[in-house]
């Protein structure tokens, strides 16, 4: 209670008032917000890695407490058949190599912590983390350590590692990046050389220059400019050619045309020993454009990679039971209807089917939004993608692949995605009109000047094309978006679609999902009602002691509620779906559902206004207490909702969970517009209804059931800890467990919008000023080149202001 406003030393979140976790770091006890963070911090201290806390520049991601079953699941990656997909054997025997995606990297100290911790494991030969891509390469000695041990070691210090198949997409991207870098180098170095010679030529026109020397300079310029024009500028020709074949006019058409025409004319002038050469303008022009494209590509790759790799992680292997009872581990893709699979607790059910043996509860929250696990008995249907929680199940598979519920949701998502308004297409259309107008103007100007000689007319037309080149116009938006995207990435928001920021700035409604978004999808004891004369402390201890041997989320919540273990229960017995019983100090206690725990002939009055899950603790004669449990709200949910409301955004809550539960959460957060018990289709309809009234909707969600709604909303934001599918289809991903970055993203989006407007205004103003001047013949092509470059540079510098830490838009 003393640390009411203390922040968790590990992740920076507020420490909840009733908890008192702490870890001794550098001989000083530091507060921790949850057992997850405490465990991670303890692991860091135990491994003598406390320097991490000195070096880091951002708080760590809130650690999640892992159920032993989840750690157990990592051993699946030791399976040689599965390893074939992502492990390469090096020249040395026993040394294997794999590429991993690391989740949770927020600053350079994270890289240090991981390299140090994993690198010191016996048997690990090499462990390198790439800070830019959040990828790690690990080499290990198969005879000394297993891959799952390495993955577990990473989990212990609060990060999540997934093996990835680095072969395909990654290599394509790498090749594309290398090619772009080579083009950039050729253009950059070429432009510098040509510029040096051009300065001499320009100076020569004023102060006089030896004619042979000037001609020599022109020949050398031609020599250096040729590879720049023929090799470095190739992407522009390709893209212009593609546009022309599709009978469109893109930005690249005048770019390619100007380059080719100006180069041809300059080369012609060089051969004929005339003075009008503009190799400097051409090469600078190419270099500037290539730089912009390179940055754009870099951002696009990085955004795509994380999402793509996560999709690949959806279940890999299943345990099939042969008719003889033998267990076989096979890839999920090889399952056929009629197969029987065994699913252990903590594992994901690989396909749709019926329970053949065993009873358990299953977590379907990803598919239905239901926050509590659902009981599955004999012959009941289970859905592929849900997670088995309590005890092993044998499942008779009846639908696989495209026939499953998960696949159906995915199809719904596809349809919603194609219905998405494509702002990018609109921008292209506007640009193509602009370019068409530009050509007409240029031709008109050329016709007017024809009378004063074709050569002069030609150079004036080139000047018009270059000076009005829409590159400032075309750079205005992407550069600002890239700068903002980079800044957001640092703040823990990953932007995966280009239009996301543009649209986010116009958002009028923010729709939240409840389970997993506003809440952790994790149960917590909300209140304890004491019904006997035992002390509150004692009751909590007894309850925790009984529940300690159960893996059920309800039980885990009660165990976590007790600060420490001082009481132990013997003869514990679990009744699946009902509760636990056990003996403490010769008294037999029961804890669980009211109908299970309440002794025969006794009554317990449950507080029905609470509408929460009630757990009763009783002995054979008396009821001792009722525990009310609820899904834990994210600590910054209230602040996020309130800040959004003060920013003039309507906040809406749509949830698949029970009505009463949603009502309570809405009331806690001060959300007036809410609906509970809505199915995925209904959510989609609600959002579309909002959109029909002219609202611009941003949807925050998590879970497969949200995927169609996420796709239908103008901007979709997924929680990074949520389902892979939701991430893959969303426009933005929150990489931390915090909600406040949404507010930051919104402010950033509005600022970006302002910068883009300034940039566009400048680009248009510049074109309006320069066009008449060029048309009058007052601007020589070299001036046009400088004007174009300066105007582009101004736009870029203006956009880079977004990268600066800005007080105006800091978090809340």
């Amino acid at each position, binding site marked *: 209670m003393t640390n009411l406003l203390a922040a968790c030393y590990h992740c920076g979140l507020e420490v909840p008032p009733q908890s008192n976790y702490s870890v001794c770091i550098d001989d000083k006890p530091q507060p921790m917000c949850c057992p997850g963070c405490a465990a991670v911090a303890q692991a860091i201290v135990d*491994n*003598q*890695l406390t*320097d991490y806390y000195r*070096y880091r520049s951002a708080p760590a991601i809130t650690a999640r407490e892992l159920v032993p079953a989840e750690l157990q699941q990592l051993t699946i990656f030791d399976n040689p058949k599965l390893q074939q997909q992502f492990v390469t054997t090096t020249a040395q025997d026993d040394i294997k190599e794999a590429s991993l995606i690391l989740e949770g990297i927020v600053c*350079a*100290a994270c*890289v*240090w912590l991981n390299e*140090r911790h994993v*690198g*010191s494991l*016996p048997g*690990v*030969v090499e462990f390198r*983390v*790439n*800070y*830019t*891509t959040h990828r790690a390469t690990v080499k290990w000695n198969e005879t000394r350590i297993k891959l799952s041990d390495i993955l577990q070691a990473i989990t212990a210090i609060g990060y999540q590692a997934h093996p990835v198949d680095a072969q395909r997409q990654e290599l394509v991207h790498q090749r594309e*990046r*290398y090619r772009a*870098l*080579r083009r950039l*180098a*050729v253009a950059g*170095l070429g432009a510098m*050389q040509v510029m040096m*010679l051009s300065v001499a030529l320009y100076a020569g026109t004023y102060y006089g220059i*030896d004619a042979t*020397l000037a001609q*020599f*300079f022109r020949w*050398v310029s031609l*020599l*250096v400019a040729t590879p720049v024009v023929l090799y470095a500028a190739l992407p522009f020709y390709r893209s212009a050619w593609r546009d022309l074949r599709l009978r469109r006019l893109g930005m690249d058409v005048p770019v390619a045309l100007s380059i080719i025409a100006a180069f041809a004319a300059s080369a012609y002038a060089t051969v004929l020993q005339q003075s009008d050469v503009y190799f400097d303008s051409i090469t600078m022009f190419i270099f500037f454009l290539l730089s912009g494209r390179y940055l754009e590509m870099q951002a696009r790759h990085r955004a795509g990679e994380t999402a793509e790799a996560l999709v690949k992680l959806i279940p890999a292997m299943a345990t099939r039971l042969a008719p003889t009872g033998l267990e076989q581990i096979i890839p999920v893709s090889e399952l056929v209807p009629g197969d029987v699979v065994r699913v252990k607790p903590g594992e994901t059910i690989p396909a749709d089917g019926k329970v053949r043996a065993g009873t358990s509860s299953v977590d379907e929250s990803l598919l239905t939004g239901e926050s509590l696990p659902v009981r599955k008995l004999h012959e009941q249907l289970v859905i592929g993608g849900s997670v088995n929680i309590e005890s092993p199940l044998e499942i008779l598979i009846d639908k696989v692949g495209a026939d499953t519920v998960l696949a159906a949701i995915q199809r719904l998502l596809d349809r919603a995605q194609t219905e998405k308004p494509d702002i990018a297409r609109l921008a292209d259309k506007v640009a193509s009109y602009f370019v068409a107008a530009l050509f007409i103007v240029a031709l008109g100007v050329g016709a007017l000047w024809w009378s004063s000689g074709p050569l002069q007319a030609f150079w004036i037309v080139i000047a018009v094309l270059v000076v009005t080149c829409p590159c400032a116009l075309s750079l205005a938006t992407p550069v600002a978006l890239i700068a903002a995207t980079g800044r957001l990435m640092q703040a823990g928001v990953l932007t995966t679609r280009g239009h996301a920021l543009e649209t986010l700035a116009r958002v009028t409604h923010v729709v939240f999902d409840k389970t997993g978004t506003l809440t952790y999808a994790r149960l917590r004891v909300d209140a304890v009602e004491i019904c006997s004369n035992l002390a509150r402390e004692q009751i909590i201890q007894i309850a925790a002691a009984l529940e300690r041997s159960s893996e059920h989320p309800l039980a885990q919540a009660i165990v976590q509620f007790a600060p420490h273990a001082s009481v132990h229960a013997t003869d514990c017995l679990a009744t699946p779906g009902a509760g636990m019983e056990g003996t403490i100090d010769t008294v037999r206690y029961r804890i669980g559902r009211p109908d299970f725990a309440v002794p025969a002939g006794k009554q317990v009055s449950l507080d029905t206004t609470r509408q929460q899950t009630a757990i009763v603790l009783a002995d054979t004669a008396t009821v001792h207490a009722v525990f009310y449990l609820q899904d834990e709200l994210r600590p910054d949910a209230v602040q996020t909702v309130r800040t959004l409301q003060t920013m003039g955004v309507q906040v809406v809550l749509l949830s698949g969970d029970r009505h009463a539960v949603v009502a309570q959460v809405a009331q806690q957060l001060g959300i007036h517009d809410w609906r509970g018990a809505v199915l995925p289709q209904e959510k989609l309809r609600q959002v579309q209804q909002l959109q029909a009234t002219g609202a611009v909707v941003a949807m925050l969600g998590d879970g497969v059931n949200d995927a169609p709604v996420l796709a239908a909303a103008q901007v979709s934001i997924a929680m990074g800890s949520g389902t892979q599918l939701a991430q893959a289809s969303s426009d933005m991903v929150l990489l931390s467990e915090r909600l406040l970055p949404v507010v930051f993203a919104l402010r950033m989006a509005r600022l970006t919008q302002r910068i883009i407007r300034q940039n566009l205004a400048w680009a248009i103003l510049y074109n309006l000023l320069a066009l008449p001047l060029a048309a009058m013949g007052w601007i020589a092509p070299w001036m046009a080149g400088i004007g174009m470059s300066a105007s582009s540079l101004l736009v870029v510098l203006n956009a880079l202001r977004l990268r600066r830490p800005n007080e105006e838009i800091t978090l809340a």
Partner: protein
Amino acid sequence: MNILYLLIPLGLVLLGIALWAFMWAVRSGQFEDMEGPAHRMLMDDDDPRVPRRQKSAEKPLPDENK
């Protein structure tokens, strides 16, 4: 000014070398991680409390300060 006829071709040769060096750097992955190394050099690796990498970590650590 005749020296320019020698110096400028020489400049072009240097240009060629610079270009080759850059291509080599790209090929050998120097541009893979642009942020990490800048931070990495600031992290102390020689703190005696930090467990040693690989070879020394496999042997028991000599008791250095406690």
